[in-house]
Structure formats: structure tokens, C-alpha cells
């Protein structure tokens, strides 16, 4: 199990990136543990809509993803005008171009939550202060 990167900042809940959603579908234990504990403790599990779009292909086969989305503790956050502009500024500031990563980071910044990710390095480059946990 990975230790949380950059501990000490108050957040409550969990944001899942593409890798985390894949890890959950593959029943990787750290993803199972964190999602279960977050939901059991009444904390939201947040899926940025762009990460969902990158993973969701056939929910008849992606059973865990389908079930997660139907759980009332799961929030899918949209990419609207305000978030879109914030993502654009983040990409400009970092000199990068991955909209999905930047959306995950933006959601985590706004909600002040930890991110479960397979891409610690890329997300760290977008925000060195985020709480990141590698799956």
C-alpha cells in the first residue's frame, strides 16, 4: 500500500482518476479498500466526467464501474464553462495538454480531496500540493 503523498492538508473524500477506475474494475485491493471505506464513512467518491468518459465503454461488462455510478455516494462532476476555463489556465501554467488529468486535478483542488491515481508524476506536475495515492 502506498503512503499518501504530501500529508497534512485537510480534505475529506476521494477523487478517482482513470487509473483508479480501472483498478477498481480489476479489483485491485487498494482501490477496493479506499472506495469502500470512503462510502462507509459517508464521504463522497468523486468521478470527474472526463475520466469517466475515458474508461466507460460497456457498463454491462464493467460491473463495478456501473455499480459505483449507481451508488448515491458517488458524484460525477461535469466539465462546464467555469471548470473548463480553470482547466485551461492550469494547462497553460503547467505547459501540458492532458485535459483529463487537468480535470482530475481541478476537481481535487476545488473539493480539497485526495486523488487515487495511477499517474502520480503527471498529476504532481499539475499541482505539487495535492494529496495523491498511487494505485
Amino acid at each position, binding site marked *: 500500500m502506498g503512503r499518501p503523498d504530501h500529508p497534512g492538508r485537510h480534505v475529506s473524500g476521494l477523487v478517482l482518476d482513470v487509473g483508479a477506475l480501472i483498478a477498481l474494475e480489476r479489483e485491485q485491493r487498494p482501490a477496493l479498500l479506499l472506495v469502500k471505506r470512503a462510502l462507509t464513512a459517508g464521504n463522497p467518491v468523486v468521478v470527474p466526467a472526463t475520466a469517466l468518459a475515458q474508461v466507460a465503454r460497456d457498463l454491462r461488462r464493467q460491473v463495478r464501474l456501473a455499480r459505483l455510478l449507481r451508488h448515491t455516494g458517488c458524484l460525477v462532476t461535469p466539465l462546464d464553462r467555469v471548470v473548463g476555463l480553470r482547466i485551461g489556465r492550469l494547462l497553460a501554467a503547467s505547459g501540458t495538454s492532458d485535459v483529463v488529468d487537468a480535470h482530475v486535478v481541478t476537481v481535487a483542488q476545488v473539493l480539497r480531496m485526495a486523488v487515487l491515481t495511477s499517474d502520480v508524476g503527471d498529476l504532481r506536475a499539475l499541482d505539487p500540493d495535492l*494529496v495523491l495515492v498511487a494505485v
Partner: protein
Amino acid sequence: MVLGMAHTQKVTVTLPIDQVAAIRDLVRDGSTASVSGFVTAAVALALEDRLAFEELLDEGLQKTGGPMTPQEQRWADQIIRGGT
């Protein structure tokens, strides 16, 4: 409790206007008996969905070593609270 009838309690909930309109349309055309009946069914489904996902997670944990240990729970809580 009368046989076959659940206890009920009147509560006030706030719903988006478009959802209320959609439910009332269903009541009007006879697709559902009442707003309360529709909301009751929706709540029942949501509760079942929660349970189903939690069971699915438990199955996954069972396959990968067993139920969550106290040490794992502390680790998860630390992360969910932001590493504090």
C-alpha cells in the same frame, strides 16, 4: 404494523422542478400511482444499489486477502481525511 403495509412517515424533501414535473406527468397519465409511490420506489432502488455495490466491494476484498483489516482501515481513513 398491519400485515403487508409498511410504516410510513411524512417528510418534506426538495426536488428539482423538472423532476417533480416529470413525476407528475407519470401520475397524470397513469404510469405511476402517486408522487409518494414513485419516490418510495426510487428510494428503495437507491438503497438496493448501495447494498449491491458494497457487497461487490466485499467480494473483491475477499478475493484479494479477506475483509479490511484494522490496519488497512486506518490507512484508508488517513488518506480519505487528506493524510492527516
